[in-house]
């Protein structure tokens, strides 16, 4: 049920941030949980105290998506993008931008299933090495005490 030890966060090239994680469920369920407004706001929340009041998904090539989060003390943040490739239940390519913060990235989510377990690989491709490093580093400088808003912004760039 808990596959925390399978979680890997790496930077295999200068332009990418890659997450992989195993889930103890068949691929169609993981895909559904990842792409349905009914399910996404139940888990993609980031730090304690945040909710996801906006989750709009038009899951088809050329369709758009928009997510927004709100913290218990009233902070808000959002991001949106366009689906470039939709191949249920194995692959989604989409753009992602979060308003004025940082450049647009291209996100690729790949799901593979083996023995009833699903491995997801989520790759975020930045236009330049500088923007990738900036996304990684500016969060660091804030340290552990970074505000939730700030963390959430970086969370969203990497989501």
């Amino acid at each position: 049920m808990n596959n925390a030890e399978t979680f890997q966060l790496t930077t295999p090239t200068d332009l990418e941030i890659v997450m992989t994680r195993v889930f103890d469920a068949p691929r169609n369920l993981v895909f559904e949980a990842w792409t349905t407004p009914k399910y996404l706001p139940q888990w993609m929340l980031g730090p304690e105290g945040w909710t996801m009041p906006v989750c709009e998904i038009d899951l088809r090539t050329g369709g758009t998506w928009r997510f927004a989060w709100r913290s218990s003390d009233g902070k808000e943040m959002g991001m949106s993008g366009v689906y470039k490739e939709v191949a249920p239940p194995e692959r989604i390519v989409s753009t992602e931008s979060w308003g004025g913060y940082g450049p647009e990235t291209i996100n690729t989510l790949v799901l593979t299933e083996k023995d009833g377990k699903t491995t997801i690989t989520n790759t975020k491709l930045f236009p330049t090495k500088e923007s990738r490093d900036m996304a990684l580093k500016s969060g660091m400088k804030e340290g552990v005490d970074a505000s939730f808003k700030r963390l959430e912004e970086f969370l969203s760039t990497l989501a």
Partner: protein
Amino acid sequence: MTFAALADPTRRAILAQLALGEASVTELAEPFSMSQPAISKHLKVLEKAGLISRGQDAQRRPRRIEAAPLAEATEWLENYRRLWEGNFQRLDALLDTMKAAQARHKKHTPKKR
């Protein structure tokens, strides 16, 4: 550069070894059963990223960890990892609920599969 340096598992293992104390190239090559040139290549990447430096001893030229930049880089990655692992554990729980609902559904409509 820091993150590229940390992306490689061998380099992370070298850093873990150096966290126990400074070591020369020869001393590092042994536990990793790698050639000295191969180790030196990894050390060069780590040094360029500012994650390690060379000690005083001119003969052994021991490498040692530069704590501050390493802590900064790993701390952020750890923060970020913690956030996503929180998301993923909620997703684990949700998937369990979805699986149970699907099993119940199958049980009640056996023909449909």
